[in-house]
């Protein structure tokens, strides 16, 4: 049971947060509340991606130890094109710096998956740019109609259309 909760808990919370954001976006009247809901939705999806990138408890952050590194370009490149079973022998001393013998290849299981991190990093920065644009449009709407509540806005828009 504990195992089950531990293996699923992140995903449950991601679903719940995403649904909170969706509910805020649909049912809240105020436009800024809708934007907060949108941001919660967005962070929930980022939470999902980052949860996928997590490896076991011994995995490191995706930054290699690099004080006087001895990752040899030539041999590592030869291994790079071959299958990863062949360099399994190097796995045990990957991650330990100042190991004098042999070229090292970072152990893929020893570091968190960097690809989702990259995607989400840019997603956050683009998210704040789009949030700024949405807030600008909100200000424009307020300047035009004098309100931020959706129902009053709809009434005013309909009155403008008919009159």
């Amino acid at each position, binding site marked *: 049971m504990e195992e089950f909760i*531990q*293996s*699923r*808990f992140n*995903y*449950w919370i*991601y*679903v*719940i947060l*995403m*649904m909170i954001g*969706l*509910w805020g976006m*649909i*049912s809240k009247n105020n436009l800024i509340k809708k934007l907060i809901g949108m941001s919660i939705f967005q962070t929930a999806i980022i939470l999902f991606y980052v949860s*996928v*990138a*997590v*490896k*076991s*408890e011994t*995995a490191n952050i*995706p*930054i*290699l*130890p*690099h004080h006087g*590194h001895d*990752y*040899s*370009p030539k041999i*590592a*490149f030869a*291994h*790079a094109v071959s299958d*990863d079973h062949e360099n399994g022998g190097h796995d045990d001393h990957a991650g330990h710096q100042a190991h004098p013998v042999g070229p090292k290849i*970072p*152990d*893929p*299981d020893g*570091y968190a*998956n*960097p*690809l*989702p*991190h*990259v995607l989400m*990093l*840019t997603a956050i*920065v*683009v998210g*704040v*740019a*789009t949030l*700024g*644009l949405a807030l*600008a449009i909100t*200000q*424009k709407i307020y*300047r035009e109609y004098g309100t931020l509540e959706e129902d009053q806005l709809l009434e005013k828009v309909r009155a403008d259309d008919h009159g």
Partner: protein
Amino acid sequence: MKKLAGIVVFTVGLILLYGVSSLDDFPSWGTPDSPANKSPLSQYFIKNTIVDTEVPNMVTAVLADYRGYDTMFETVVIFVAGLGIFAVVRVFEHGGASRVVTADTKPDIIITNTCRLLIPLIQLFALYVLAHGHSSPGGGFQGGVIMGASFILVALAWDLDIALKRFSEKQAFICSGIGILIYAGFGLASVFLGEEFLNYGIIHKILPGVDSPEMARYYAMLGVEIGVMFTVTSIMFLIYGLLATRGKMTAGL
């Protein structure tokens, strides 16, 4: 509407909860064997960033080199967002009244003196984050946001006019364009030297003191991040200025 929203959200949530908790092929949290972690692409990135690019921080290497196109157009998205906000809220007032400084609106002496002390340090830290992004968390986006926040701090502590004297609207737009041009320039330089767009390895032919493609990638990544930082800094400051003054770009919050 609220009831309907509740029903929709509840149903979707139940379906997703069922999906993440009881499907057998959904990988559990933190397994190294999940399809995403076992994919050849991420394994290649972990094994080879250090030999391909000499950059220990894999995230920076993947961000600025392997996925260079992606990052370039993310930067363009930020630039376009700035232009969009400018187009939406900017108003031009001819001969508008300048702000009247009263006892209430005068900048506070304690706050301004602390800011005088802190803002150079914040900007120095932003440059450190940019330059040290290769071997620690950081990079162009973070450094740019911190740098933009330092200008926002000037605008908050004194007022927006003082900040605009340091970094005017026109300069900000020019800087954001320059950032993208720096980024695209590194791409074009590699095209002119006979490689693909944004394949920086070839730049070692023209960079003085760099003799291997790996170190060329290292320095080209730094240059690209500088471009990103230019754009992000100026666009963050512009967004704040435009939002805080309803597009008037004077006085403000």
